């Protein structure tokens, strides 16, 4: 395997597309085909959570001048064998509020929206069932969790160990529905060029969409061409195929035009997924010296009627700390809600919030410093898989972070530090995220005197992948950056995994290295030479436990009169393998930590129990952190290279920044106020009730 020379890798390269992005010249999905006389789609959505359409009257909509077509379940093109949640406009059944029941295609967006409001739909409906509780009688154990994890894990006699533990905690945390809400709303531009479907689409990797869209429209992969050069954020919501992409293909087929579908912000709350709410019971048992004797983490979460989404919420608990007796379980309730999806570190984000909050509560019970308690329970090997770590530097993250933050000498007593009206506290939490590789292929075309053309269907959703992959290719080919012409985000390029699960660099980078290896020591003929390379998971996946680790420290201030919560500073220290580009890596950690702050203090989508809809479905009512919410962010990483996992020695950094961040803030809130809030978000009213 080609070793990188570290000329470009590890150096501060600014984003290659930066000058275009800051001026607004980098085209996102909706901004393609500006001169194509495109037509526009507006959706009609169900107003009931469960039921059946008994009549649909589109005559008034069709009569609006400029309307080209109204698609309903009665006349929309039939789709192939797609999964239930994607069978849009295929039948009268309704399974959640906001499900598309008609689509209007018109010459302008104003006319499309006007006409959509004129479609009359009547339903036969029943009362929605949308409230998740831990004592529902219909909770069930899924066959397995997402990413193939076992539903439950049990080692030792947990109940006996808990009963015998000299010190223990038994606490329940809840996290609400949250929404990814990338600022670029999901959008698709679609046109049929003969029997070829051309799409410009906002997604996390065009190849992710190919199996579903080809099946839906009965075409081959050669008859589908998707490009997505710039994507305005995703955080998971753009990973999988959603109904609007199929509606775009149908509308283009029916009208023979270039159609543009852009979801509204309100539609983003129903049609592209959400993070499932969780109810998590944590029980920890320990010796008086802090040695854990038992860990139990039981999770209840929801999924939808039309899809099973089983989030792996407690899987991080399987590896964080040593303990002889341990148990994790996951149970689901199938509710009348839209299908959940992945949202930045699905599983780890809510799961580590609960575990790391419970560890803090145990530290208080024990009278042991919470950093020290974690150090005392460091496992030498993966405690459940019983394999060695490829690298694990949690201890170094905690100690380095404590030093940077100024943790030493912290008074453990809660509610005793005042600064005027403000109560002040500090908190800590650990972070982890799995390191994985997925199959990917790359191609390099060499022509004497020209830059190398490096092609891979990778995706840059704001991660900096375009820049980092160019750095990797430049070093592998031993040329300066400007001698690499990187091409990504096109379904006709060599197949690669999507941007998700923090697997981009670990999957795509080694594929480029492998292709470059094929070129090594070969003379390039005047007519040029094309080589390919591929990469995928190897023995390391079975033989080693590979994870990034980190530590968060936060200072919280709470106004004792208003309950307002401020976070003036956070420190995050990460051990996440080789860092390809320090500039963009720092932004990834920063973005994750800030999203964790947002989760701790602001984010919650409220399900209306009576009508079954998401009540606060816009950015005025679903709060995300804004400029004024964020203070000083100190971000640091350790020198770590994990070549036992992949030849780049990288681990993936897109998600670990959010994991544990909300727990550090919650723990600091307790330290400031003496109040333990166990239900996110920690809004001002929690101080009073």
């Amino acid at each position, binding site marked *: 395997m080609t070793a990188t020379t570290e000329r470009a890798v590890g150096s501060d390269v600014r984003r290659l597309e930066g000058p275009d992005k*800051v001026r607004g010249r980098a085209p996102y999905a909706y901004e393609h085909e500006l001169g194509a006389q495109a037509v526009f789609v507006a959706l009609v959505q169900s107003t009931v959570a469960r039921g059946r359409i008994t009549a649909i009257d589109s005559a008034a909509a069709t009569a609006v001048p400029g309307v080209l077509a109204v698609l309903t379940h009665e006349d929309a093109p039939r789709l192939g064998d797609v999964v239930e949640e994607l069978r849009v406009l295929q039948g009268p059944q309704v399974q959640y509020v906001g499900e598309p029941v008609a689509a209007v295609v018109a010459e302008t*967006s104003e006319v499309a929206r006007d006409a959509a409001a004129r479609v009359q739909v009547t339903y036969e409906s029943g009362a929605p069932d949308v409230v998740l509780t831990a004592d529902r009688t219909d909770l069930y154990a899924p066959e397995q969790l997402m990413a193939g994890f076992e539903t439950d894990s049990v080692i030792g006699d947990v109940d006996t160990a808990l009963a015998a533990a000299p010190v223990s905690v038994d606490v329940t945390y809840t996290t609400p529905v949250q929404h990814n809400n990338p600022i670029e709303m999901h959008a698709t531009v679609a046109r049929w060029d003969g029997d070829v479907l051309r799409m410009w689409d906002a997604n996390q990797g065009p190849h992710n969409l190919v199996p579903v869209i080809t099946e839906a429209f009965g075409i081959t992969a050669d008859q589908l061409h998707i490009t997505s050069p710039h994507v305005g954020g995703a955080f998971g919501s753009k990973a999988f195929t959603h109904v609007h992409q199929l509606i775009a293909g149908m509308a283009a087929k029916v009208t023979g035009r270039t159609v543009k579908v852009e979801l509204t912000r309100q539609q983003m709350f129903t049609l592209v997924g959400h993070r499932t709410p969780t109810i998590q019971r944590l029980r920890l048992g320990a010796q008086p010296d802090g040695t854990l004797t038992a860990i139990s983490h039981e999770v209840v979460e929801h999924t939808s009627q039309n899809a099973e989404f089983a989030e792996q919420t407690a899987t991080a608990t399987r590896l964080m700390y040593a303990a002889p007796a341990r148990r994790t379980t996951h149970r689901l309730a199938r509710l009348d809600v839209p299908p959940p999806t992945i949202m930045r570190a699905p599983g780890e984000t809510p799961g580590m919030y609960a575990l790391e909050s419970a560890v803090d509560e145990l530290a208080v019970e024990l009278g042991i410093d919470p950093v020290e308690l974690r150090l005392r329970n460091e496992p030498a090997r993966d405690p459940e898989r019983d394999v060695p770590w490829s690298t694990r530097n949690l201890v170094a993250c905690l100690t380095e972070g404590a030093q940077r933050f100024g943790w030493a000498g912290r008074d453990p007593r809660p509610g005793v530090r005042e600064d005027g009206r403000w109560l002040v506290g500090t908190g800590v939490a650990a972070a982890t995220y799995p390191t994985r590789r997925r199959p990917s292929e790359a191609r390099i075309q060499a022509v004497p005197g020209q830059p190398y053309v490096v092609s891979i269907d990778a995706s840059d959703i*704001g991660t900096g992948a375009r820049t980092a992959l160019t750095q990797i290719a430049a070093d592998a080919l031993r040329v300066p950056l400007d001698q690499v012409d990187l091409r990504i985000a096109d379904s006709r390029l060599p197949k690669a995994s999507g941007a998700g699960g923090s697997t981009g660099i670990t999957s795509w980078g080694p594929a480029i290295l492998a292709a470059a290896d094929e070129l090594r020591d070969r003379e390039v003929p005047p007519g040029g030479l094309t080589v390919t390379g591929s990469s995928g998971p190897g023995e390391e996946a079975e033989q080693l436990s590979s994870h990034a680790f980190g530590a968060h420290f936060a200072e919280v201030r709470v106004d004792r009169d208003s309950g307002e919560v401020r976070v003036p500073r956070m420190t995050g220290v990460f051990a996440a393998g080789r860092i390809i580009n320090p500039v963009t890596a720092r932004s990834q950690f920063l973005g994750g930590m800030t999203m964790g702050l947002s989760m701790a203090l602001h984010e919650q989508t409220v399900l209306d129990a009576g009508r079954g809809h998401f009540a606060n479905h816009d950015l005025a009512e679903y709060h995300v952190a*804004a400029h004024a919410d964020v203070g000083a962010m100190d971000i640091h990483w350790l020198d770590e290279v994990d070549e036992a996992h992949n030849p780049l020695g990288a681990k993936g950094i897109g998600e670990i920044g959010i994991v544990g961040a909300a727990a550090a803030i919650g723990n600091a809130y307790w330290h400031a106020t003496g109040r333990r809030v166990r239900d996110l978000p920690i809004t001002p009213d929690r101080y009073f009730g």
Partner: protein
Amino acid sequence: MDREITLEVDGAGRASTVDTRTSLLDALRERLGVTSAKKGCDHGQCGACTVLLDGRRVNSCLVLAVTADGAQVTTSDGLAGEGPHRLHETFVDHDAYQCGYCTPGQIASAAGVLAEVAQGWPSAVTEDLVAERTELTDAEIRERMSGNLCRCAAYANIVPAIAEVAVEQGVRA
């Protein structure tokens, strides 16, 4: 109902036929092919569509295009002269963005902030409301930029990117 309007967009006169229901944002994006201003919510909640309308920052999704007939509209792209605007350079240098979608709105908004501070406009965090000179501190930047959401959360990089230009323009020591 359609109406003919004329806008000066980023220095160029542009005529367009718009529906009376067309927002300034949709006039730019869907009718004139000017996509520097972005749509992130269409309700004035995210700031991605921020442009300078006759020199003052607005959420262009909340302005009806017909009411802007004859106005001067400046997007982030239009801030550039012969070369990029200093905000373009400092945003790239500080990596004050990730996906880049909210960024033209952040930059148009920042240009508006710099002008507002130069004119002595106070904000909700300004201590002396009648002072002749307001210093564009970090707290002032955060407050004045809070109408521009960044879901990638580059906020901590956006503040120094704006501060650097503020120093150059004499509104920050």
